[in-house]
């Protein structure tokens, strides 16, 4: 069965056979660019559709059901609508920053994809500091949001951007600590190494208490970092109308919207990689028939399944909880999540040194 790894190698070999190494590399980059743009489009369509359906199920509604079979192409129709919409630039704005902000947000969302491992040995760039890279790049997205909010010359936007600044930087700490737990257990920052370390069992099973705590903290922190309800202070629709993207319309708004969903995908993919074993199939014991059946499922399906499960959890949060207030949001981080994750890190260190994990 041809895996993604297989196809990638075939293309690589064919290109190198046809062209000079430099040209081949250029073509590979080109293919990556096209693929990633394709991935973006598909993610946008799928995730928005999923959000709508999940919310509809929870809210006794049907969800979109008019465009295409079971409303599958609703997002396509909406995209067309957004393209036809006018992308206005209000008079009072800082034009340069205002137009730059969506690009920054998009660049961050795209670059962060580089070290993600989508399937077995299928990765754009296996950076040796993979986890660290993701932490570093993801903090850039706050710059885009601050830029958008400040440049809009709108008080709602300003408030939204400021809130978002305080929020994202705060929650980055506990997300970082949660990542560190896994790094300590693995002893490596490379994504591929982390995934390989889970071949005999996912960290969530092997690492017991510290990993469970880290996983819960990670989920809370990334929900906050991606500005999702119940932590959607930056948008806070009932308070700030639309927060930092109040003044954005048309395609520029669509880019923010898309970036938000791609960010959700990225953090959930990261969560799946670190805690749920990435593309590793579910195994019990060694050499049983069950394991062989699990192995038969392609690694990309495993990865996607885990990621989408986590995405569902984040959507589930959104459609259940009320929004926190800004001071409660920061209290939660500084009074609960941060101290707990610090002690959790000590616990993880202890367990690693004693070798108590499986």
């Amino acid at each position, binding site marked *: 069965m041809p895996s993604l790894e297989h196809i990638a190698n075939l293309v690589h070999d064919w290109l190198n056979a046809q062209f000079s190494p430099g040209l081949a590399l250029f073509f590979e980059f080109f293919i990556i660019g096209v693929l990633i743009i394709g991935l973006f489009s598909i993610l946008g369509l799928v995730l928005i559709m999923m959000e709508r359906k999940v919310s509809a199920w929870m*809210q006794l509604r049907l969800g979109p059901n008019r465009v295409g079979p079971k409303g599958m192409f609703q997002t396509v129709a909406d995209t067309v609508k957004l393209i036809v919409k006018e992308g206005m630039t209000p008079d009072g704005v800082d034009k340069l920053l205002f137009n730059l902000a969506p690009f920054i947000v998009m660049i961050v969302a795209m670059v962060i994809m580089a070290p993600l491992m989508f399937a077995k040995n299928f990765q754009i760039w296996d950076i040796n500091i993979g986890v660290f890279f993701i932490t570093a790049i993801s903090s850039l997205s706050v710059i885009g949001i601050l830029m958008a909010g400040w440049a809009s010359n709108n008080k709602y936007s300003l*408030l939204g951007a400021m809130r978002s600044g305080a929020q994202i930087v705060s929650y980055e700490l506990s997300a970082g600590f949660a990542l560190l737990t896994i790094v300590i257990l693995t002893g490596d920052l490379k994504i591929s190494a982390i995934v390989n370390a889970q071949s005999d069992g996912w960290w969530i099973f092997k690492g017991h208490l510290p990993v469970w705590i880290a996983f819960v903290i990670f989920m809370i922190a990334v929900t906050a970092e991606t500005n999702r309800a119940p932590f959607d202070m930056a948008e806070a629709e009932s308070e700030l109308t639309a927060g930092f993207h109040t003044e954005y319309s048309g395609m520029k708004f669509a880019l923010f919207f898309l970036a938000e969903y791609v960010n959700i995908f990225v953090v959930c993919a990261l969560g799946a990689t670190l805690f749920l074993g990435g593309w590793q199939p579910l195994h019990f014991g060694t050499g049983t028939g069950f394991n062989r059946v699990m192995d038969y499922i392609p690694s990309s399906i495993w990865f996607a399944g885990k990621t989408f499960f986590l995405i569902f959890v984040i959507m589930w949060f959104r459609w259940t909880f009320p929004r926190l207030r800004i001071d*409660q949001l920061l209290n939660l981080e500084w009074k609960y999540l941060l101290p707990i994750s610090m002690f959790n890190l000590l616990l993880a260190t202890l367990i690693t040194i004693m070798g108590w994990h499986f």
Partner: protein
Amino acid sequence: MYRETAIVNESEVTGDLVINMGPQHPATHGVLHLVVHINGETIRKVEPHLGYIHRSIEKMSESLSYRQFIYVTSRMDYLSSHINNHACAMCVEKGLQVEVPPRAQYIRVIMDELTRIASHTLWWGAMAMDVGALTPFFLAFREREMINDIMEETCGARLTMNYMVPGGVMYDLHPLFQQRVKEFIKHFRSKIDEYDELVTGNIIFQNRMKGVGILTKEDAVSYGCSGPTARGSGVSCDIRKLYPYEVYDKVQFDEPLETAGDSFARYLVRLQELRQSMSILEQLIDDIPEGDIQAKTKAVLKLPKGEFYTRAETARGELGVYIVSEGGTTPYRIKYRSPGFSNLSALDHMARGGKIGDLVAMMGTLDLVIPDIDR
């Protein structure tokens, strides 16, 4: 004679921001315009600007006959239109000194309580939506829709029913009415605990609500608050208990009181009122007496010279109807003392020192219906 609206630009001096919330804002549920002075996230001052939906119903009523003006009041507090109509009909009856037949009295009270449940369920959904939970809104609408269907069947309309006429009600109950109401009560009894689990018990919701927008008992009285807003502050002000009208003195129900005076207290009062309304319905629905539904009245009504004031407990508080009659076929002057207007006046006092998020939660628990405030 008029003084210009003083827009003092304090922002340059103190670092304050002046934000307009509304008239087009997701949290103002209509066209309320609040000018909010904030510093950082902290609210310094809230100035309500009203009048975006002012239709001068009082002036309109002056040119309408005593049968006709009742229907206009459905458009004031459209969520408790039955009770508005009821208060007006009672005021006309007081002037005419007409005794309403017992059957009509029962029907009126049942309709009032159904309206109250419909209004409070909608408030619950909207309240949860204000603090960011979107799912409760749809759960609330499921229940409200059942009531609307019952109303549609008997009254012929879903929102502005115009079912009350001076001397009774317009038509008799639909044959299926009692059965439908019992079904609804059974359904709602099973669902109201879900309300508590989903929203009331939620830790985030409680944190958002507790200690926010505190209105002390003295302030509540001084600001003329009524209804659940005042009862959340421990002021006993239920017109149904204090000055019973129709058959309210025959039914057993409690007036829920909370003493904390914060948003959560007001929230709890309304949730308990839902349960009380259901118990009133249960007591009344089985023994509606047979008989006339309208007292005999003349085709053209004329109130004697004098002043008449009636009050009724709407879902938002005390609605007063003050008719000054000169003996003609139309009222000389009508004043509607709407509950929302007085409740809103306390908003500035409550909101100072809170956050923007708190303001939204407070507005939610005040249960503002803007046409009721502007009239």
